[in-house]
């Protein structure tokens, strides 16, 4: 047993944590049903009436998961407004952000033994922005296909332009499909990085998405960010 002094940093609000797990579930659901929509399983029925309406179900599950995911963004946005710990996006307007990113990247390329302590390191921050961009592309292309059942309704008017910008609705299908794969590749990297951080630094990286807290030995460089509006972050000494 080792006795050590660590500080507990409260980062993620319940809103972000709940959002995160809704996102995980819906992305898994969306990916599996999405693959089934592209390449459906052929049911050898006799009449459509007597089959289990498999494609209809797959599509409905896909749509329900999609709408749940979109609705969950309400939690994410509310958390973002209210809690500084939910606002850990890249500080691209600050010079040290780029130096720090290179520093962390060198560590992950196994060229440097360690990197400075962060609540959330700049490389991770950038990757999450990347994820949100991919999710945005999926939402736009998804609704562009979904609402065009009736091009004259409000959904068609809000999202129909996506098909025009991409140069055809078939291309929208492809973009939707390819970006889905990219999100899965991101997820593999994400899970690995979290587990690696937890194994090597033992700062509660993985459990922070359940408890909302991380335990750090050294004062992280980005600590001031969650203290910007003091009272909401419970920093225990």
């Amino acid at each position, binding site marked *: 047993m080792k006795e050590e002094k660590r500080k507990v940093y409260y980062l993620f609000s319940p809103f972000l944590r709940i959002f995160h797990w809704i996102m995980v579930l819906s992305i898994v659901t969306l990916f599996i049903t999405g693959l089934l929509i592209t390449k459906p399983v052929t049911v050898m029925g006799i009449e459509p009436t007597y089959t289990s309406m498999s494609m*209809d179900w797959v599509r409905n599950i896909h749509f329900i998961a999609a709408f749940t995911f979109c609705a969950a963004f309400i939690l994410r946005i509310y958390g973002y407004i209210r809690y500084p710990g939910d606002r850990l996006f890249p500080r691209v307007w600050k010079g040290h952000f780029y130096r720090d990113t290179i520093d962390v990247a060198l560590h992950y390329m196994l060229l440097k033994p360690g990197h400075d302590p962060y609540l959330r390191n700049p490389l991770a921050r950038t990757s999450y922005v990347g994820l949100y961009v991919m999710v945005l592309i999926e939402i736009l292309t998804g609704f562009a*296909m979904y609402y065009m059942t009736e091009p004259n309704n409000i959904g068609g008017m809000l999202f129909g*332009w996506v098909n025009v910008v991409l140069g*055809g609705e*078939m291309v929208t299908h492809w973009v939707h*499909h390819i970006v889905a794969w990219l999100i*899965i*590749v991101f997820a*593999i990297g994400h899970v690995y990085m979290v587990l690696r951080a937890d194994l090597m630094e033992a700062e509660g990286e993985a459990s922070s998405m359940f408890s909302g807290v991380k335990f750090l030995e050294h004062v992280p460089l980005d600590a001031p960010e969650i203290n910007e509006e003091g009272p909401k972050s419970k920093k225990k000494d």
Partner: protein
Amino acid sequence: MDKRESMWDVYLRKGMSRRSFVKGCVALTSLMGLSTDKLEKVVEAAEKKPLPVVIWIHGHECTGCDESFIRSGSPYASDVILSQVALEYDHLLSAASGEPFEAHLEETIQKYKGQYILAVEGAACTKDNGVYCMSGGHPFTHTLQRAAENAAAVIAYGTCAVSGGIQAANPNPTGSSGITNFTGKTPVVNVPGCPPIPEVMTGVIMHVALFGTVPPLDGEGRPKQFYGNRIHDTCYRRPFFDAGMFAESYDDEGSKAGWCLYKLGCRGPETYNSCGNMRWFQGMSYPIQSGAPCIGCSNAHFWDEGKMSERLPKFGQPIGDVDKIGAAIAGVTAVGVAAHGAASVIQKKKRDAAKEEENGEQVNK
């Protein structure tokens, strides 16, 4: 200018009955996608409006749209041409030819400035000043520009006129494009399809002729009444799609039984046209009904959107489609992170050992 006949005048001159005139109007009303209470307006317009003058020109294309047009069943193409519009100039259907014919085009443009309807088939060829498509001694784009600037409205018939069609497919050697770059401020109705449905062609021209305005258009300039539905949503094979009953090849049991053609590359889910509800040749059939998946011929770039018999483009053996590439990349990523993890652990152990040794040495001293 001599007095121009209306549709009713033509019927009178030909000794046709009022009954057949009204019947014609009823057919037109439903064809234009209007509700029956608009019948009065259609009859009124057909009685009073002089027959619209139509100039019909052809660019880079196969004249397949005309082949479709002459097969229109209600109204008959012959009725449209002979008693419902005044077709003054048509590259394909006119008996005349040569210089007097070209002079007649100029005459018609001058005489009916701002009143005639210009129907255009075929793409505008733009490369090398348009020399790859000449008509009457001029590049087609010249004729198009000249005729379009004085027209009341332009109807772009077929995917070629709307977005370039097969000429504009990769690598597009003649620099072909849709006609909208050459029509100036004249309103354009896009009637895509390769070819468009005959009744859609006659319906659009009759709408412009009788009401003097272009029909309500969607975001891509297509008449809403004909292009407001997805083939997939109007397809009679849709229940098979929902049930998951698919034809896997062109000669299997599913194909014989008339199951959904989605897996054979059907473009129905992203194609907007009236094939599903109006069908072709007086409702006789349409591609999906005859067992061929929709190729999305009314979509702007359908030639370049991958193989028509596949939903996802394949990149040849042994690479395969996006799913295979995606799975491979995911696999490589998984192996990569595992290797990275192992390297990280080994590195850390080495460094820790080195540190301990150092510490140990310090203690010993």
